[in-house]
């Protein structure tokens, strides 16, 4: 076929970027007759019989006849008709190989996010036989990739990479224009907008231009009928005519190149997405996705978020971070090379025949809880867990399926939570859920938290997450030691266990004979992986100025409200009640004024926010009692300062909304502002010149992305200390806020969210590192 010569790898390997201006290589495509893409596509019955519709690549078989890609195969863009046609022809091999190379280039060109470790890179390059053309034994040489530039070995230096990137990964046509024009051209092509052509060594820029094109991706995907394909091609032809080609030739060189050469596919270097210029849309395919995943993994980038996050934030690791502007990898059994490929089709068949996906409504997991007494504190905390991505994924992935307590018919609160998840995410029912099993299990553990009387939501939250931890420990003990758990063990947190004999054999537990004591910093349970952080308390001796550091684990932060502000707001509310002015109309956000509690209306002069509470939390305070300094060995005054050493993925904040007077405890209903996005950097040890200095400049920036949190749930209380009502306000994945009031779920505006009085706030990491 005429097209196969165009894609021959030899011509590509020989022309490096520096030779891109070589008219010979450029004119090659032009001198060829039109490629098969621009001619009418043969109906499938006339395709040569030897090109099968089954594609085998890397030992996995894909059926190309199917119109839609099975969601089990990959989670990426849908393939377009152009892509499907190419995969049926002989030109698929070069295309796939070029894609492989282009992915590697794209990975390297995003090197700022790579935490380059020479050990991982050298060991991985030995696997990439296709990339090593020109081995050198000199350890100072740098590794760059094939067919667009030279290949060398060993350590990667960011500055060299940067130089190569700016040299090679720029638009060819912009360079031409620049070289050939006398006056200054303001065409700038940053490499972020480079489209690497997958069929020739061209790199093009893609500046946006106003177009009249509106290709409908649904049409492209769902037809194999050649009439429709012809129509689509004609439609594209018509639309091509609409754009004045002068504009394209100046600005959007990737598009003009594709039109000139009929090279349809290109890879966007900044986010490794494949683009089809015929459809003007991102496209994908399981085969390509598999290559992409393999390449990313080969370069040592680990997609295991939890593992990566906890390792890298301690800055002692050489693990590489996932490049965040790339599409996330969704490894399934079918694109994971480590899984046994021979079973894939059997697995697919099993899944397709015996299961069905839940309805869309069920997949949102939205359902209310019926109030069964005074259970609003239970229902709000449970809602915040149900819509917490980490907890939700933990349960939906079936991590609590084989609970040992259930097998022995013993009480397990985690099992009843698992049942709630199962129900919420698969059932189509929209009426409230009755918490029968949960209340019974809770009653068996801690009677006063079983919904009979009103309790504090934060206390209940601590109880539930502790239960998750305990059941994890029990199950991991049962799995590691083949030991019969004594039936005396129940779900209560102060368990006196009878597993004295085998407690010392646990590898990651620090046990004593009375209680199972696990070091929370190493614990593998979902509670600690999600919520546990580290607090560093530094005590400075006033005499010798030496600082003692202690590190404690923390599951949440309890923030006090400064007494100055409390008094200020009390005066304000008193003033208001005496002045009898109606300030509700004037201020932008207000809180309802209640006679029994202290309230304040929000106005710009007197706003108090979570930031202020956090500042108060981390300011040094002078200790009342004298402190035994271990350096100067005297009893001295000291000051103590709390900073955060390690931040958890989900940060829980509790506002201490109670004020203890000599006679009673009063609730503070003051409105406290909270931001939707919270940057925790200044409360961490990196911002305070404590013991840790960053090892290199990248380290702070590395951590920077991990220090921004976004609010996803708040729990509000209305009422007094003794009685009241809780509601939860939670954000869904579309960014819409929902109010959960027992069994009633309503949409709520952002303004209303910001104006509510939060008691518990849940912030989740904004960006996966």
């Amino acid at each position, binding site marked *: 076929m005429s097209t196969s010569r165009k894609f021959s790898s030899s011509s590509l390997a020989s022309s490096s970027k520096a030779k891109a201006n070589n008219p010979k290589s450029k004119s090659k495509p032009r001198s060829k007759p039109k490629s098969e893409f621009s001619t009418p596509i043969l109906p499938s019955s006339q395709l040569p019989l030897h090109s099968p519709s089954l594609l085998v690549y890397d030992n996995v078989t894909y059926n190309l006849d199917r119109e839609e890609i099975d969601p089990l195969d990959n989670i990426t863009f849908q393939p377009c008709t152009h892509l499907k046609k190419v995969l049926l022809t002989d030109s698929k091999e070069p295309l796939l190989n070029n894609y492989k190379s282009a992915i590697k280039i794209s990975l390297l060109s995003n090197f700022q996010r790579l935490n380059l470790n020479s050990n991982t890179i050298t060991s991985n390059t030995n696997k990439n036989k296709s990339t090593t053309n020109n081995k050198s034994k000199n350890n100072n040489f740098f590794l760059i990739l094939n067919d667009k530039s030279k290949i060398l070995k060993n350590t990667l230096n960011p500055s060299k990479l940067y130089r190569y990137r700016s040299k090679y990964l720029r638009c060819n046509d912009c360079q031409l224009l620049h070289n050939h*024009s006398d006056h200054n051209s303001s065409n700038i092509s940053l490499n972020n907008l480079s489209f690497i052509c997958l069929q020739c060594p061209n790199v093009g820029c893609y500046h946006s231009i106003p177009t009249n094109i509106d290709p409908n991706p649904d049409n492209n995907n769902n037809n194999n009928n050649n009439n429709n394909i012809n129509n689509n091609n004609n439609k594209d032809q018509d639309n091509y005519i609409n754009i004045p080609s002068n504009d394209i030739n100046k600005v959007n060189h990737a598009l003009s190149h594709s039109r000139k050469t009929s090279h349809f596919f290109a890879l966007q270097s900044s986010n490794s997405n494949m683009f089809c210029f015929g459809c003007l849309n991102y496209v994908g395919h399981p085969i390509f996705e598999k290559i992409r995943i393999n390449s990313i993994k080969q370069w040592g980038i680990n997609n295991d978020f939890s593992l990566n996050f906890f390792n890298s934030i301690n800055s002692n690791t050489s693990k590489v971070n996932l490049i965040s502007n790339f599409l996330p990898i969704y490894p399934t059994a079918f694109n994971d090379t480590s899984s046994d490929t021979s079973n894939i089709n059997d697995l697919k068949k099993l899944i397709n025949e015996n299961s069905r996906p839940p309805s869309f409504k069920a997949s949102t997991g939205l359902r209310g809880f019926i109030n069964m007494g005074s259970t609003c504190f239970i229902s709000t905390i449970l809602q915040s867990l149900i819509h917490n991505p980490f907890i939700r994924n933990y349960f939906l992935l079936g991590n609590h399926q084989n609970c040992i307590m259930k097998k022995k018919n013993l009480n397990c609160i985690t099992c009843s939570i698992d049942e709630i998840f199962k129900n919420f995410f698969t059932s189509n029912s929209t009426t409230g859920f009755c918490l*029968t099993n949960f209340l019974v299990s809770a009653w068996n553990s801690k009677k006063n938290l079983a919904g009979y009387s009103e309790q504090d939501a934060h206390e209940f939250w601590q109880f539930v997450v502790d239960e998750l931890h305990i059941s994890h420990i029990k199950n991991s003990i049962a799995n590691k030691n083949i030991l019969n758990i004594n039936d005396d063990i129940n779900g209560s947190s102060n368990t006196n266990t009878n597993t004295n004999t085998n407690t010392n054999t646990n590898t990651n537990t620090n046990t004593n004979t009375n209680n199972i004591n696990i070091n929370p910093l190493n614990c593998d349970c979902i509670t600690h992986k999600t919520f546990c952080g580290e607090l560093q308390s530094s005590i400075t001796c006033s005499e010798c100025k030496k600082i003692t550091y202690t590190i404690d684990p923390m599951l949440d932060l309890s923030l006090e409200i400064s007494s100055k502000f409390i008094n200020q707001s009390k005066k304000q509310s008193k003033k208001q009640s005496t002045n009898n002015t109606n300030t509700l109309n004037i201020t932008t956000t207000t809180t309802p004024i209640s006679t029994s509690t202290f309230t304040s209306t929000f106005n710009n002069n007197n706003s108090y926010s979570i930031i202020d509470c956090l500042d108060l939390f981390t300011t040094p305070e002078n200790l009342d009692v004298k402190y035994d300094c271990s350096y100067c060995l005297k009893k001295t005054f000291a000051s103590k300062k709390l900073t955060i050493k390690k931040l958890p993925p989900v940060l829980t904040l509790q506002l201490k909304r109670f004020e203890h007077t000599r006679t009673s405890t009063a609730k503070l209903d003051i409105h406290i502002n909270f931001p939707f996005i919270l940057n925790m950097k200044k409360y961490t040890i990196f911002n305070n010149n404590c013991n840790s200095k960053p090892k290199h400049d990248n380290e702070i920036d590395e951590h920077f992305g991990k220090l921004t949190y976004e609010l996803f749930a708040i729990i509000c209380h209305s009422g007094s200390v003794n009685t009241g009502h809780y509601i939860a306000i939670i954000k869904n994945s579309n960014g819409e806020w929902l109010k959960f009031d027992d069994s009633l779920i309503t949409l709520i505006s952002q303004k209303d969210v910001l104006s509510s009085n939060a008691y518990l706030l849940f912030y989740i990491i904004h960006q996966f590192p």
Partner: protein
Amino acid sequence: MEQQLTIGSLSAEILEELLQTVTHELTAQLVLQEQLLRAQYGRVEAGGPGSTGSTGSRLETRIRWSSTRGRDIFGHEKTTDASHFVYCPNCGRKHSAGRFASHIDRCFGGKGSRKAASNGGSSSNE
């Protein structure tokens, strides 16, 4: 027609390219999500209060939530807790949902009322 290269035009171009990078990234992710959802569930359709409980095919599609006052997102009105009934796993009798918590306390506890504990000392087996 070439633009004059000034600092202003240069910075505007740089800003535009930076923004384009961000938009590309966001667009790609959103397009992917929407494609996957559509492949599974179809497009978003308008659904009022009446459409939630209808035929099976309707449940498979994505329905917009209702945001009328007084009704929840599914279009239901607020129901009183008294209208729900549950069966107690211990005694097997039917109870009003709103009183279930207190029933558990009596049914499982075996006494008239439990020990009053205001701030949760943990209570082991009574």
